[in-house]
Each structure stands twice: as structure tokens, then as C-alpha cells.
């Protein structure tokens, strides 16, 4: 855990130093402590720092949500986006873009529309699958996947009938980015993901017991229905918020929990915080690459997380297979 924390701080510092405007380490350090109102200071605090904080919050939230859902479904292939929540958010945003709502309301519209879309999907899957006060997990997964398909079809429909500049907006939003000029949203996101992390620890016993299956968890004195509902809602809200602010940044919620499980085992006391920190670090790192590789323009961060995360994972898996573990 200490190593993880250290790595995270190192990545954050690295990310602070790297950027399209090349600032040396000395300049960086100097401007952090003294140079108010210098260009360097402005770049650091107005451009890079917000992205790092947002990367921390979103990366942590997605990865935490992934680890919770994988624990809940006892299925390692589940990730935050499997549940159709991102689809709902994307649909909400596409509608907002094409209906030009943002012109009348302002910049916060897109995150808000995304959140609205995400929440409606969550409520939809939840109400479909709750019967006799029990949440049907298998059904939850299937409806989630179906809603994912339906909403992506709708998005394609919207894209087909929208004009070029709207199309561009939709595509860029879908690919995900940590560029967010609104400080309030950044702080809110940070608060939500840290609150999510603390709340998840209320359920560490439940998550650990659920590793044995629902009935076994009940035999261990776990109120499984309450745990399932609370954890599903918690993971959904974390995902919904992350997607609304950052767009669809894939793979963090799938890969990082896997990685962490390989390294620290499946005890959720370590795994929850480990995944949060791992996801945070990974996303900050990917974002740094995204904005430095082709500087001064930038790549969509979702592309980097996908390519990097995926290939890294295959590599780790292959190595693990070879060592016979």
C-alpha cells in the first residue's frame, strides 16, 4: 500500500512537470513555492493540477466501482461500463449536444445531462430486476448489457442525423478527456470519489463474505440483500459521476482491479484502497502520455488507457501463465 501511494505521488509529480510547455524540474519547483502570477505558475495550477486532481478522482472512482461490481457479481469480466451506465450517460450527453441545450444553459449542461442519463439507466435496471425485495444479480447483468447495446444504437442514430460539428462534439466526449475547466465540478468529483471510497469500507466484510457466494455470505451473518443493493447503487453512482465528468474512459475499471488482485490478493480490506490508488495513478499516467505524446495537440485519454492497459494486461497474464501460478 505504501509502495502504491509512493508510486502515485511520483506519477503525479511527473505529470506536473511534463507538458506541452516544457518546464524544467527546477522551474516547476520554484514556481510552486514562490512564483505567483508567472506563466509557469499559471500553467501548473490552472492547467496541469486540475487535470491531475480529476485524473485521481475519476481513475479512483472507476477502478473502485469496478472492484465492487466484480466482487458483487463474482465475475471478473464485469466492469462499470458493462452495466449500461456509461451508455445512458453517453446518450444523455449526445441528446444535450444535438438539441443544443448547452447554448442556453451553459457549460455544466453536458456533465449534468450525462448524470441524468446515467441515473435513469440505474433506476431502470434496478426496478426491472428487483422482485420480492430481492435483487436478481444475473438479470441485472443481462439487462445492463442490453441497455448498453440499446443506448449505443441510439447514439449511432443520433450521430447519423447530426451535423458535423455536433458529431465532433459527441465523438470527443465519448472518447473521454480529463479537460474540465470548471473547478467546482473537479472538487465535487474529488469529494464524491473519496466519499465513495470511505463508504465502500463499510461493506468490506460483506464483499469478503460474498466471495463464497450469496448463500454462504448469508450463513456468515451478512444481510446480503442490503449489501447487494447498497453496493450496486454505490458503484453505479461512482461510475455515473465519473462518466459524466470525464466521458467514457475505458479499461480502468476492468484492468486495475484485476491487476490489484494479482498483486495483493482478493481481501477487500486491501483491495478497495489498492484499486482506488492504482486506478488513480494509472489514469494520471495515461493522461500525461495523452497530452505529451503529440504535444501541442493531445490524444483522447481513453485511447491510451485502452491500448496501454490492454497490452499490459495480456503481458502480465502471459507471464503469470508461464510461471505456472
Amino acid at each position, binding site marked *: 500500500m505504501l509502495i502504491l501511494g509512493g508510486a502515485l505521488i511520483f506519477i503525479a509529480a511527473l505529470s506536473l512537470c511534463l507538458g506541452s510547455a516544457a518546464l524544467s524540474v527546477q522551474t516547476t519547483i520554484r514556481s510552486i513555492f514562490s512564483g505567483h502570477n508567472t506563466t509557469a505558475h499559471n500553467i501548473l495550477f490552472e492547467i496541469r493540477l486540475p487535470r491531475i486532481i480529476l485524473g485521481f478522482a475519476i481513475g479512483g472512482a472507476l477502478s473502485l466501482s469496478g472492484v465492487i461490481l466484480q466482487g458483487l457479481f463474482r465475475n471478473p469480466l464485469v466492469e462499470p461500463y458493462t452495466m449500461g451506465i456509461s451508455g445512458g450517460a453517453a446518450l444523455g450527453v449526445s441528446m444535450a449536444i444535438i438539441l443544443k441545450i448547452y447554448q442556453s444553459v451553459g457549460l455544466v449542461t453536458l456533465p449534468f445531462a450525462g448524470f441524468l442519463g446515467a441515473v435513469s439507466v440505474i433506476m431502470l435496471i434496478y426496478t426491472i430486476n428487483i422482485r420480492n425485495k430481492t435483487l436478481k444479480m444475473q438479470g441485472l447483468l443481462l439487462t445492463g448489457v442490453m441497455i448498453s447495446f440499446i443506448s449505443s444504437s441510439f447514439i449511432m442514430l443520433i450521430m447519423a442525423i447530426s451535423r458535423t460539428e455536433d458529431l465532433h462534439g459527441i465523438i470527443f466526449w465519448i472518447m473521454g478527456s480529463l479537460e474540465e475547466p470548471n473547478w467546482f465540478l473537479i472538487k465535487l468529483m474529488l469529494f464524491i470519489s473519496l466519499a465513495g471510497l470511505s463508504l465502500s469500507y463499510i461493506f468490506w466484510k460483506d464483499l469478503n463474505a460474498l466471495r*463464497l457466494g450469496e448463500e454462504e455470505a448469508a450463513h456468515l*451473518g451478512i444481510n446480503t440483500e442490503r449489501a447487494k443493493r447498497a453496493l450496486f447503487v454505490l458503484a453505479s453512482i461512482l461510475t455515473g459521476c465519473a462518466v459524466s465528468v470525464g466521458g467514457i474512459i475505458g479499461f480502468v475499471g476492468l484492468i486495475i482491479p484485476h491487476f490489484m488482485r494479482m498483486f495483493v490478493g482478493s481481501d477487500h480490506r486491501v483491495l478497495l484502497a489498492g484499486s482506488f490508488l492504482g486506478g488513480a495513478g494509472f489514469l494520471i499516467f495515461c493522461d500525461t502520455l495523452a497530452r505529451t505524446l503529440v504535444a501541442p495537440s493531445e490524444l483522447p485519454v481513453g485511447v491510451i488507457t485502452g491500448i496501454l492497459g490492454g497490452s499490459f494486461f495480456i503481458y502480465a497474464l502471459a507471464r503469470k501463465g508461464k510461471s505456472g501460478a
Partner: protein
Amino acid sequence: MRWPGRENRVLEIRNLTCGYDKRFHLKDVNLAIGEGGFFGIIGPNGSGKTTLLRAMTRILKPESGEVLLRGKDIWHIDFIELARTISVVSQNVSTDDLNVGEFVLLSRIPHYRGLQFLETKHDEEIADNAMAMTDTLKFKDRSMSEISGGERQLVLIARALAQEPKYLLLDEPTSHLDITHQVRVLDLLKKLNRELSLTVIIVLHDLNLASEYCDRIALLSGGTIYKEGLPGEVLDYQTIENVYKTVVIVEKNPISLKPYVLLVSEDQRLRARKK
């Protein structure tokens, strides 16, 4: 916690009807299982043995009737309180990628206090103790997926023991085991029953094992209790032939003097009839 008087030290099932999706697997079952006993539940496939066990452990909600633990409806007992009283060894436990030690320690979950975050020395001692009793301490660091079926069954019992229950419910713990392990598991349960005065309620397929080890037996048939009593009362050839629709001969085990059920194949039956 103070329990009511001695006469209440019993797990009682009253007019229990329950099943899945409106199809009833159990109809109007009445049963009282006294504490400290070794109680067997037998019956053909689909007669409702596992359903009964699931109703007793609060997995299945009764359609009507109730299950009373020491006079209290189990659906009104706190989850954690129930888990501290009853522990269950079920047939399919997914064990993930856990190692044996971690797996056994999970049983301490109902004993955690409020904000307790790590296992205490006490928890670890109890887990080690349970593994020592079941002779599984030597696998402590092995993965659950590496050990054999017999060893796995012993580890499941170790986990249930570390939960420090008053009642231990087991669903066919000896199926798929060779006779060495069958006897080992049941001898162990008998010993725990005697030494810790642990109440054992066990679903068994093997009539002879049930006869040898159980103080009392309930024979289920088609979702109702066909007969309940001492092994000698329940296991006579007529009862078994009625319930199992199979020809059997019941003899006495020369050493334990308990009933012993022998099967007769169709060929032999025909040959006997010709004579």
C-alpha cells in the same frame, strides 16, 4: 445473551410449507430437534432434504409456518446473532482463489465487533484450533483449489467450527468421498458432538451411515416427514421399500446392533422368486 429455560433448547419447525416460485417442496413439516443431538435427515432425491436445510438457515422464506430457534422465529433473529448460533456446511461453496487459512478465517466475520478491521489474536487462535481439530492445519498455506475432495470437506467443517456455533448443519458432507474419508468426517462430527456438545443436523444419502451415526433420523418423502425416530424405528424394510420403491433387506450390524440396509439387484430378485 440469556436464553429461556432448558425446555426451549430446541430447533423447532412448525407447520412449515415452503418451496421455490409457488411450487411447494415442503408441505406442513413439523419437527423438533433437541440440542446436543446428532440428527439425520434422509430421503430420496427430490424429497426436500436440502430445501428443509435451507429453510432452517433462513435462505428460504417459508410460505407458511415457522422455524423457531430456542423459541424465537429465525426470521426475527438478527443476521449476526443467527450466524453465531448456526453454521452451515453446504454442498457447493465457491472458494475463489483463497488459501485454506484465509478461507477458515472468513468464518470469524460474524464475531467482528463494530469497527473492528483486522483479525485479533483470538480469532486466529480459534481458526488454528478448528484446523487442528479437523487435522487440516498442515494445508493452511495451500490454495483451496489444490487440495483433494476429502481434504476440502474437512476444511469446510473447520470453517464452520471456527464460527463457534451451537448448531452445525451439513448438507451431504460425505457425498463423493471414499469410505476412509466418509468415516473420518463422521467420526469427527461425532467427536465434536460429544466433546463440544455441538448439535449436529446432517443430511445424508447413505442410509447405513445415517443409521450408524445419528441418534435420531427423519425420513422425508415427497416434501413431508414420512417417519421420525430412532434409527431402529425408522429404518425397517417396509418403510424403506415404501419410500424408495426399492427392494431391500434390513439386517443388524453385528457390532453396533444398528440396522443395516442391503440392496437386492433385479437378477437376484427374479432368481429368488423362481426358487
